[in-house]
């Protein structure tokens, strides 16, 4: 959904922000660096790092964004444990659509990767579907922005 959101917004996001985090800057997303720094501090940092990250995000983006981001962190601290606690695999459609960036970002090497290897047909068709999806999202986003006006 991150890639789809960036394409819908007509941007050129850097998906490596997911695995590399604040090291790669904003990743093409408003306040991206401060958001990833906040997530990193909340998941793996000490209390001082977390307080600093919280203050920086609040100062840059406002208290409402800070609260929303903390809520998303809470939600995904749960989601990852449901996925891993129940041992679920990624759905085949998502496996196909995410094949390129999973390989680029090294996600297939995660200990929790229990998913099947894609068959030859799926590997061939997936880039075509990804290209079509990207085009559709960019057109939809452009229309939306035009309808909202300047």
């Amino acid at each position, binding site marked *: *959904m*991150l890639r*789809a*959101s960036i394409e*819908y*917004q007509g*941007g050129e*996001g850097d998906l490596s*922000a*997911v*695995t590399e985090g604040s090291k790669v800057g904003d990743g093409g*997303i*408003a306040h*991206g660096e401060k*958001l*990833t720094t*906040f*997530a*990193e501090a*909340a*998941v793996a940092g000490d209390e001082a790092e*977390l307080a600093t990250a*919280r203050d920086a995000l*609040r100062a840059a*983006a406002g*208290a*409402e*964004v800070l*609260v*929303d*981001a*903390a*809520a*998303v*962190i*809470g*939600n*995904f*601290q*749960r*989601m*990852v*444990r*449901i*996925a891993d*606690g*129940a*041992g*679920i*695999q*990624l*759905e085949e459609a998502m496996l196909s659509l995410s094949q390129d960036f999973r390989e680029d970002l090294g*996600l297939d090497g*995660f*200990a*929790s*990767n229990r*998913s099947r290897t894609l068959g030859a047909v799926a590997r061939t068709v997936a880039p075509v579907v990804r290209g079509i999806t990207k085009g559709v999202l960019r057109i939809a*986003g452009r229309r*939306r922005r035009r309808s909202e006006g300047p």
Partner: protein
Amino acid sequence: MSAFSYPDSPDPIRADLAEAYRWAWAHIAASGTWLSGAERVAVAEETRRARRCGLCRERKAALSPFAVDGEHDHSGALPAPMIDAVHRVTTDASRLSRAWYSSLLADGLSAEQYVEALGVTVLTISIDEFHHAMGLAPEPLPEPAAGEPSRATVPRTEIDEVWVPVMDVRKASREQRALLGTPPGVPKVPNVIRALSLVPEQVNAWVQVANAQYLSPDKMLGFETGRAIDRAQMELVAGRTSSLNECFY
């Protein structure tokens, strides 16, 4: 003062978040499907205790979490396999295995009890982690309510994509299927919803809190969030949090 009222928070906490958290606390305190209110509150307490558990710390640092034996720092209120489940899900979930899950069943835990404990554990984590991120003290756990578990069953099936048995949606009644709250327009129930579907009230709890913390099902397939944070920002935070947890899904 009511729970989750945040009088000392320097930041305004959205009313829908506080309301969802109050709902979740009442849900945990109540008798469930396979666990009593006292057992569910004990699971929530064990979830918090796992963060300070010496054995969990040792296992987390080990090359294999299954190479380290010992006893968890626990309250004594739950059976051993449930304590192990709660602690490992809390502290080292990405290295769990199907063999480990099977060993819990061999040690006497039922699949239904495991799924319910998993649901309560992750619900507690999601709320505690919000407080931690915001620099707020964790909310005291609720007092358990009296009552017996309902032991309501659903048609079940085993599928390759999930370790735990799931609701067989082909055999389930319309009412039982509705409990999964599948988003409109989604042709197949996503695996993350199926994961808890053996105990549908846990799916409902997941949805209730996710509506406030993330997005309601009707917004999940769109790009408008209705929040101060936009969808790309939301997914960046979600992706980074998942990546730090080494979650492939």
